């Protein structure tokens, strides 16, 4: 295939908008999600959680719970006798079930399995835990101070210079040139500090699983997750099982956004199943989801940017401090990499600090680190534009990264789509629409890497010529549709001749989790390659039938054709005809492809938003929103648009109302959808998606991941819009009404 087939190819299926293949079961309530299946003899699991932010566990008395009728198993950390060697696995185990101390409000300390939900709940209430409450710290800046309560000593990496509090576990720096000399060339320098609150992914489906685990080490797990292979590997590692003995099946998944790329409670369910000898269903409550599954990090950031009066950025620095929660790790390095990534800068330096706090372990959330990377940078650029009386889109174009630009995180860019998004924004009617009183328009850019990773796909040609496609990544937002389309495109068969399923861990090789916007790119790539593999086999079978050389067979429109007049005169053999004689020509026909798909293309977006600020109450209303993003090639444009709209909506929530609120006691005060305020339908306008297609050379169809970039620009776009509407620069998220009103009054 020519390398530029995505530009020359006349797509028949890709780029159309068919109804998704899993649609009917999802609109009729038949689709089975994490909590939707049961097993004969099943027990109900429940988890007891720490009410303290930081406490030594001196003892746990489970005798009363164990004595209760209907209680079949009670477990604590003592039941997890396998001690993982790998520190990452050990941390996951400790997070699933606290060891010597509870590290955050909501940390699991014990669990039960009982014959009914109500008995399980009553049993939890009968467990007595003897806590010694320890000093705690939940704020990232407080946690960095010397003398702050240390969450866990001895976890500092070699990258952290001496003198930092032990809560600071990691540090990274990126950039090039000399920002100080860059600042000297600037006509104006703006330096500001910003804060963003921790936000939760807010998927509507709480974590749920159904586990069995027998004394012979064989187990089955049905679970809602973004990666059932990851769940298998982690559960095996944590419990000391053989991965091959544990089969994990991914249920339908009710949203994840990164929050279901981690293991939070599945080992607990397996341990309850092992101890009780029964299947155990474990479903978290919404309260537990908020308290004990990871939100993203809160951040505290300092940014300094110098600009000439013509709008050229001469120097730029940023320091990111992100809270990682109760275990080492963190994503400040990603903020440090992504913040200035849209720009072509001579002098730039960023630094990221990973900081432990007494909060749940921070988890991935859609382009992790990138939104809080972009927000302070894009805010300061906007302020510079305001003060220098410059057009914010032209100024971004003037500094925009393009092919050949050395990025702020190091590598030189290949062909990228940032300028295209800015140009599209400039010429869109939204940009020139009039604004009313107390209204403002904000723009911001965003960047995300996109990933590939381990991927397996199997494509079976059935005896009747229909096709079964097995992939190993849960369908979180329409990916079955995309895979079915790519397989149909490649094979040249109608869409309804292909059915795609998500295989369990015993049916297909290792697959990386559904993350990093990798699925349409990497699984799509493997699907195309698996189809091509099957086509090669079918060409061989046709060649054998015709008695010619396989090289002399072409594949088009779902059939084998003689390649030319020299190949001989044979009527085409359709996939159906080839399949019908498969037993006679060598046996079943199946293509497959296994790959670590590296080299995914980076992605850029520009967002534009109008808001209105009520000057008397500080309330912010989003009036109009437009997303401009490069999709490489939109396989199913409806679902690409959906990713743009969904990311923007989550960004709007993050910008205006969502936040983890901790009390002085270190406890989470708003562990529910009532006071953790994600946008409701009446909060939002229509969100206009503008798809740009700058092909990714790393994919046969030019596909780029699209799932994550859309959450990167909204924080800043809205902050810029609100700041312009209010006439005062907002530097702290969320821009909730009390904050906006206070800023207005302080003017």
């Amino acid at each position, binding site marked *: 295939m020519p390398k530029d087939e995505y530009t020359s190819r006349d797509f028949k299926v890709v780029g159309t908008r068919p109804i998704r293949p899993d649609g009917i079961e999802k609109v009729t309530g038949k689709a089975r999600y994490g909590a939707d299946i049961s097993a004969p003899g099943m027990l109900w699991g429940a988890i007891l959680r720490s009410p303290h932010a930081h406490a030594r566990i001196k003892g746990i008395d489970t005798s009363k719970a164990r004595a209760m009728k209907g209680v079949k198993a009670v477990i604590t950390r003592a039941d997890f006798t396998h001690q993982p060697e790998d520190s990452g696995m050990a941390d996951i185990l400790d997070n699933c079930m606290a060891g010597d101390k509870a590290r955050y409000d909501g940390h699991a300390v014990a669990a039960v399995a009982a014959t009914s939900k109500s008995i399980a*709940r009553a049993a939890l*209430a009968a467990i007595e835990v003897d806590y010694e409450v320890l000093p705690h710290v939940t704020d990232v800046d407080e946690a960095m101070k010397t003398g702050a309560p240390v969450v866990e000593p001895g976890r500092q990496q070699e990258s952290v210079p001496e003198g930092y509090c032990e809560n600071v576990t990691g540090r990274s720096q990126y950039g090039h040139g000399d920002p100080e000399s860059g600042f000297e060339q600037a006509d104006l320098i703006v330096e500001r500090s910003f804060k963003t609150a921790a936000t939760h992914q807010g998927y509507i489906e709480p974590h749920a699983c159904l586990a069995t685990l027998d004394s012979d080490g064989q187990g089955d797990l049905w679970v809602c997750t973004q990666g059932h292979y990851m769940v298998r590997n982690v559960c095996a590692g944590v419990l000391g099982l053989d991965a091959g003995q544990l089969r994990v099946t991914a249920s339908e998944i009710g949203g994840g956004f990164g929050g279901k790329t981690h293991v939070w409670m599945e080992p607990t369910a397996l341990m309850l199943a092992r101890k009780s000898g029964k299947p155990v269903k474990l479903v978290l409550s919404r*309260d537990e989801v908020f308290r004990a599954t990871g939100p993203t990090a809160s951040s505290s950031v300092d940014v300094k940017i110098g600009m000439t009066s013509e709008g050229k950025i001469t120097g730029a620095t940023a320091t990111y401090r992100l809270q990682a929660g109760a275990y080492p790790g963190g994503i400040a390095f990603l903020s440090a990499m992504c913040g200035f990534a849209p720009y072509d800068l001579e002098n730039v330096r960023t630094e990221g600090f990973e900081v432990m706090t007494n909060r749940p372990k921070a988890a991935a959330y859609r382009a992790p680190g990138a939104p809080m990377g972009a927000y302070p940078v894009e805010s300061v650029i906007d302020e510079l534009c305001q003060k220098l009386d410059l057009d914010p889109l032209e100024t971004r174009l003037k500094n925009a990264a393009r092919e050949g630009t050395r990025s702020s995180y190091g590598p030189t860019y290949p062909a990228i789509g940032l300028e295209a998004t800015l140009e599209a924004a400039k010429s869109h009617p939204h940009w020139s629409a009039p604004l009313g009183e107390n209204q403002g328009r904000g723009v911001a850019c965003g960047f995300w890497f996109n990933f590939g990773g381990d991927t397996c796909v199997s494509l079976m040609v059935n005896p009747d010529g229909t096709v079964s496609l097995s992939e190993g990544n849960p369908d979180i937002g329409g990916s079955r549709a995309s895979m079915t389309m790519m397989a149909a495109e490649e094979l040249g068969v109608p869409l309804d001749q292909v059915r795609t399923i998500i295989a369990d861990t015993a049916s297909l090789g290792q697959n990386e989790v559904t993350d990093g916007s990798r699925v349409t790119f990497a699984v799509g790539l493997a699907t195309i390659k698996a189809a091509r593999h099957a086509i090669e086999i079918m060409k061989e079978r046709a060649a054998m039938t015709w008695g010619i050389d396989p090289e002399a067979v072409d594949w088009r429109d779902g059939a084998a054709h003689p390649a030319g007049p020299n190949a001989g005169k044979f009527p085409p053999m359709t996939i159906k005809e080839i399949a019908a004689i498969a037993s006679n020509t060598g046996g079943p026909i199946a293509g497959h492809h296994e790959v670590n798909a590296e080299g995914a293309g980076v992605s850029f977006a520009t967002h534009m938003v109008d808001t209105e600020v009520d000057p*008397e*109450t*500080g*309330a912010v209303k989003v009036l109009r929103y437009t997303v401009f993003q490069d999709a490489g090639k939109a396989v199913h444009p409806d679902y690409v648009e959906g990713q743009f709209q969904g990311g923007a909506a989550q960004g709007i929530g993050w910008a*205006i*109302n969502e936040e983890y*609120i901790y009390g002085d006691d270190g406890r989470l*005060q*708003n562990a529910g*959808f*009532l*006071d953790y*305020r994600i*946008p*409701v339908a*009446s*909060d939002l306008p229509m969100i206009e998606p503008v798809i740009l297609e700058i092909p990714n050379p790393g994919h046969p169809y030019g596909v780029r991941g699209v799932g994550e970039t859309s959450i990167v620009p909204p924080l800043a776009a809205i902050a810029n819009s609100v700041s312009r509407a209010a006439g005062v620069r907002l530097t702290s998220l969320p821009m*909730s*009404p*009390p904050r906006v*009103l*206070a800023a207005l*009054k302080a003017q």
Partner: protein
Amino acid sequence: MRFETPTSVDQAVALLAADPEARVLAGGTDLLVRLRAGQIAPSAIIDIKRIREMTVISQEDGGWRIGAAVPSAEMNEHAALKADWPGVVESADLIGSTQIQGRATLAGNLCNASPAADSVPAMMAARATARIAGPDGTRDVAVEGIPTGVGKTSLEKGELVTSIFLPAKPAHSGDAYLRFIPRTEMDIAVVGCGISLTLDDQGKISDARVALGAVAPTVILSQSCADTLIGTAGDDAALDALAAAASAEAKPIDDKRGTIAFRKDVVGVLAKRAAKIAITRAGGKTGGET
């Protein structure tokens, strides 16, 4: 826990009187949340929705009697009630989502005794009364007499609210309720304000009731706020005075939903805006408004 379904008020009173740990279930939108969270563990749930008289809206003495089991959605669909007391009906219509409105009741909102209850300031402004049935018979109490603190009421053992009465709407009067929430729906009021007022023949305000929600442990019925309006035509100066009085009267706290400063500011803003709506509904004109 038992589940009881009395079909008469007397049965309900008897059940309640016999079991101090029993709880009344009307719409259940607060009760079930607390039950599930383990905050309460009643010995019995007494569902009042099978008591016919508690499920109807009826006219009485020119006013409206609303059964304690009537969901707010039903009030919103009642054109005549809405025409008389739009502020009260709107306040009930603001409680939670469509789904919540299908269940939540005025009486439940009142007896839950939250200072942020949306319908309570509107009912207070409207001079609503609650009819209480108990072992000693029935009594009518002004709505402001029911909540005594956060989650606490003046109801005695064996008593329950059977209905809310909204009196006959005076001529040239209007009511309004506004609340502030961070989103457009689904939130608990950060601040609320209910106002009911009556105009005289000259278009001056002859009577006014102003109630402030979520700015004290119980809803404040503010005479000082009412005084800023009475005798005026609701001009800008009067409305500014009302806003200042409301802010002064508010004794809020800092919590996850708002700050003291924010609540004190915004209660004034809402009072002003609610007063304008009430004046317009009463047939008057407000300063600067057309």
